[in-house]
């Protein structure tokens, strides 16, 4: 049998577990680095020690920095990256389109429009978060309402209409965003731009995003074998006993809620949702049973690492994390794509 070294090897449970473990360990290393590095550099042992001083009677300044600034921010970065990559991987399967990403169906546009409106109205940060969440859900409901026929009673190939509906809704939100940016007072503009490019500065409550991540994984990981079959087409999947309509609705809802939770936590961080699933595909193949959990781990790892870079490279100034993910992601993706023999 001919074997080409660059081709991904057959996937099985133990190989998938090895990939997940490697990504998990890398994520832990970056987490510890995120706790230790920053404007005040701490020894690794001190940074880890701070985690166990959470309830100490006399927390010192290092404990404070780790527990109230760095840990929540790193966890929020991990959760939003994981949610974005998960949403991207799922939408690429649902739409059978390699260009799909978490924002393609308008979730982020809705979130951004509402969040910017809240900023224009000078609401406090929690009002902005709440507005972003409401906007994301408004967009999910609009797209679902308009394209429900294509999700439920899918014809020979229903995806193009769902995709087009989402894209058109997204461009409608885009126009609203541009309108608000053009009428916004100078003083608010900077905050709005940072929100739009994705920003973990001030992300202080990672728990909603982590809980959303856990729910999304529990809802979709057991369906991963069905996702593999769905990629072959609706007719083939139905003939193999996959409840196609139910599965498509489930994938749409999980992907949308994941994107909504990520956008609410960290704004519209670009590129992770598109590129992380493809990097994993290029490296390990397109088996959804491996890919879905791996995308979550790798997406979390990528955003956490990018945020570490964003706040240390030109410290004390900070870059928006979305800029870093795109600046690193573009060359990395192109390199992986083009070195593959065709």
């Amino acid at each position, binding site marked *: 049998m001919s074997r080409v070294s660059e081709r991904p090897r*057959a996937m099985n449970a133990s190989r998938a577990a090895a990939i997940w473990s490697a990504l998990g360990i890398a994520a832990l290393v970056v987490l510890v680095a995120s706790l230790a590095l920053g404007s005040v550099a701490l020894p690794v042992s001190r940074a880890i020690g701070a985690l166990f001083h959470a309830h100490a009677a006399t927390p010192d300044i290092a404990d404070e920095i780790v527990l109230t600034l760095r840990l929540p921010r790193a966890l929020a970065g991990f959760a939003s990256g994981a949610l974005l990559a998960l949403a991207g991987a799922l939408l690429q399967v649902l739409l059978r389109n390699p260009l799909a990403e978490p924002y393609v169906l308008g979730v982020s546009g809705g979130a951004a429009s509402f969040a910017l409106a809240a900023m224009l109205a000078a609401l406090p940060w929690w009002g902005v978060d709440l507005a972003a969440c409401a906007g994301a859900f408004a967009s999910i409901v609009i797209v679902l309402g308009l394209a429900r026929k294509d999700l439920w009673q899918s014809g020979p190939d229903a995806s193009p209409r769902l995709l087009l509906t989402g894209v058109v809704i997204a461009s409608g939100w885009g126009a609203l965003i541009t309108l608000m940016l053009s009428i916004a007072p100078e003083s608010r503009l900077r905050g709005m731009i940072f929100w739009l490019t994705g920003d973990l500065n001030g992300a202080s409550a990672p728990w909603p995003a982590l809980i959303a991540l856990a729910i999304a994984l529990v809802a979709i990981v057991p369906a991963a074998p069905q996702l593999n079959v769905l*990629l072959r087409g609706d007719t*083939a999947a139905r*003939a*193999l006993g996959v409840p196609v309509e139910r599965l498509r609705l489930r994938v749409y809802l999980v992907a949308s809620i994941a994107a909504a939770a990520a956008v609410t936590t960290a704004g519209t961080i670009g590129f992770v949702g598109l590129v992380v699933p493809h990097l994993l595909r290029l490296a390990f193949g397109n*088996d959804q049973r491996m890919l879905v959990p791996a995308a979550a781990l790798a997406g979390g790892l990528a955003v956490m690492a990018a945020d570490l870079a964003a706040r240390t490279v030109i410290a004390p100034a900070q870059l928006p994390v979305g800029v870093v993910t795109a600046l690193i992601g573009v060359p990395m993706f192109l390199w992986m794509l083009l070195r593959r023999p065709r």
Partner: protein
Amino acid sequence: MTLHLDAIVLRAGARTLIDGLTQTMSAGEVWCIAGPNGAGKTTLINVLAGLMKPASGRVSLEGRALASWRAAELARARALMPQATHDAFCATVLDTVLLNRFPYLTGWGWESDDDRSAARAALDMLGLAAFAARDVLTLSGGERQRVALAAVLCQNAPLLLLDEPLSHLDLHHQIDCLHALRDAAREHARTIVFSCHDLNLARRFATHALLLDGRGGAFVGRVTDVLTPERASAAFGYPLALIRDGEHEALVPSIHRS
């Protein structure tokens, strides 16, 4: 496995494609569904697979109405090869074929060694063993078609429903595939139903035929009784002549139109 059609009526919009068809298809038989474009071949195959309901009538498998089968159970009893499958992303040929073992997956949904050997056996049967590690996106149309056929074979279902399995294949591979299907019917007592535009290959390899004229008419029976010049001419709306040379026979379009 016995497939029974009871007074099946198929409609597309206002057109009646099949007006009341009753027939039994049994193990070991190879059925060819023939007819002009739009006559309802794909619709009929989807109805036989239980993916679509007929306008009226009933299809039953082993005496049980298709609607009463559980999806997973049905997927182990009948395999469907659709006319087109999607390959939007890279995957090896082996992984693509393994997807049809889905009805047998248990636990966390990883394939067992049995699944892998079934997939390899199916690839061997169609002469695709050397392609196992190839990326499906690099295959030609005909090679993809053979991969799709291997996938359906590795599902190990007693009833095979194949929608134009020979399209895109060169003559040599068409005949190889038909040999593989005929062996599957004879040696493993499978029931095979395929749609096909090549009436001569159908006459040679099928045991039975179902000829649709797209106007409600359906002729069924032994292939040599159904795919006759008279009936085929009427169904296709173009005169056909049967020519003989020794033991070879062929239906050819007549030179004299009308």
